[in-house]
């Protein structure tokens, strides 16, 4: 029995268990419901707006972009929070005390947060298709594009979440260190309005990060070819999308294990104890 492969198998099972437990938890159900209802209400109130010069209705333009933002947001903030919290509550330390435990733990995290995308995307996609017309113009090929963009987007952004969760000093800091930058980035990445309305240098910054490209990729899947005129350079730039996302994925795959190892090395019982005391003070 190869212990590493065995640990990865246990990690997959762990991720699945966490996923099932999360689906059953009222707290997480509430979160999915809240995001979905919020998005749908936003789209519903903008349902009669037409995007200038394209003949496209706003929900048609915005839905793929919002899905893109959700992928990025979900797999950066989700793991960052989870990791920061599990560093403090001892989950991570438990795994550090096991043979090959960290490999299993990280596999579990990756599995859990990847699976977690499904309900958050489906709870928006399914009702959107019931409420709005003309969302998907790409047909079967379009869905195929959705699939690879989501997978690449996941690989590009999930490591960022793991890194963030490893370096934040405490769970309470995930908000300022993680949520704020990600929200800012989303705001400038052409999710709620086309990126051209921003200044040139802001556009340049946005195009360094994966969020813009995930949105672009999803728009290329959902929107009719005529809508390409809304994009920069009147092109879907599929090649560049793949290139940027793969680059982020490779960088992430190289850096994340190192950051995780360093973080795990520093884990100890007294750290967990200190976090516990800090939290108790926070509460009282």
């Amino acid at each position, binding site marked *: *029995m*190869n*212990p590493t492969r*065995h*640990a990865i198998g*246990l990690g997959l*099972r*762990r991720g699945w*268990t*966490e996923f099932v*437990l*999360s689906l059953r*938890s009222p707290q997480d159900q509430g979160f999915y419901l809240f995001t979905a209802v919020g998005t749908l209400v936003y789209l519903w109130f903008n349902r009669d707006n037409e995007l200038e010069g394209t003949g496209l209705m706003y929900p048609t333009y915005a839905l793929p972009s919002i899905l893109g933002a959700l992928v990025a947001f979900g797999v950066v903030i989700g793991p960052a929070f989870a990791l920061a919290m*599990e560093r403090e*509550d*001892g*989950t991570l*330390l*438990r795994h*550090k*005390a*096991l*043979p*090959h*435990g960290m490999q*299993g733990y990280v596999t579990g995290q990756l599995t859990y947060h990847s699976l977690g995308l499904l309900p958050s995307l489906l709870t928006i996609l399914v009702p959107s298709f019931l409420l709005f017309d003309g969302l998907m113009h790409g047909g079967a090929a379009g869905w195929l594009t959705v699939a690879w963009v989501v997978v690449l987007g996941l690989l590009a952004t999930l490591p960022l979440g793991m890194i963030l969760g490893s370096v934040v000093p405490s769970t309470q800091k995930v908000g300022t260190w993680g949520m704020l930058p990600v929200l800012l980035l989303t705001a400038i990445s052409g999710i709620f309005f086309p990126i051209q309305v921003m200044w040139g240098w802001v556009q340049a910054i946005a195009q360094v990060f994966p969020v813009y490209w995930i949105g672009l990729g999803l728009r290329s899947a959902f929107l009719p070819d005529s809508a390409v005129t809304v994009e920069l350079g009147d092109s879907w730039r599929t090649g560049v999308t793949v290139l940027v996302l793969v680059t982020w994925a490779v960088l992430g795959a190289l850096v994340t294990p190192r950051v995780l190892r360093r973080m795990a090395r520093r*884990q*100890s*019982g*007294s750290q*967990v*104890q200190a976090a*516990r005391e800090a939290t108790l003070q926070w509460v009282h």
Partner: protein
Amino acid sequence: MVRTSGLRMSYGDQEVLSGVDLEVHPGEVVCLLGPNGAGKTTTIEILEGFRLPSAGEVRVLGEDPATAGDAWRARVGVVLQSWRDHARWTPRRLLTQLGGYFEPFSTPERPRPYEVDHLLATVGLAEHADRKIGTLSGGQRRRLDVAVGIIGRPELLFLDEPTAGFDPQARRDFHELVHRLSDLEGTSILLTTHDLAEAEKLADRILILAHGRIVASGSADELTRQVAGTAEVRWACGPDRFVHPTDDVVGFVRRLFEEHGDRLTDLEVRRASLEDTYLAMVQRAESGRPAGPVLEEVTR
């Protein structure tokens, strides 16, 4: 099983451990006793491989914990203090998941991990096996921590303040569990506590850690005998009552009888308790005086 020499640890210019020498032999239950801030947790975390010492030599199961691999990990059990992790899981599910990591390290002589139902019954969680961990009481949660720590049938087990927050019943159950582990499985155990009664009850040997070094080592009895004035004699002659500390109880009482004879109306001899011993030794360490014969005993 465990051997350290000259173990030092400092944070910045504050020295927490200043030369700790300790040993744990196979099958032994050793209790590390000391006031808060004496370095108990630091010591045990170094032995667990969770912390790097500043200097000194450490050998745990023949390896340096800082560099030991996963095969070493599989032989060591660590009982951690958890507080809110895995709240949605059940004890059965968690033990099954975590125990899985030990399967590749199972041998015919030492099958790993323990069977989950058997373990749940051993720590007294059988009836709570399928409850959410988040709903367990503090004591039940600690028993789960112990179960997680021993699931891999460790040869050596570390427990840091295992019974903090236990009620008396939970404490007694836990003590039985430790005895069973050491008697039936031959597990060597190193635990920290500041509960003297616990140390006296559990340990084959007690180490007193004060001011970053071991100031005494021995069974509760041996430690008590190391401190001067091991007994207190109280007596009364009619209405007058007297108290006198002495090392030589028998001699002193004989002289009392010779002197007072029938006028002696009451007599009581009190052995120094482990508590007296402990306080005396910690005090001695604090006063900075090298603790005389006691220290020599230990550093050998």
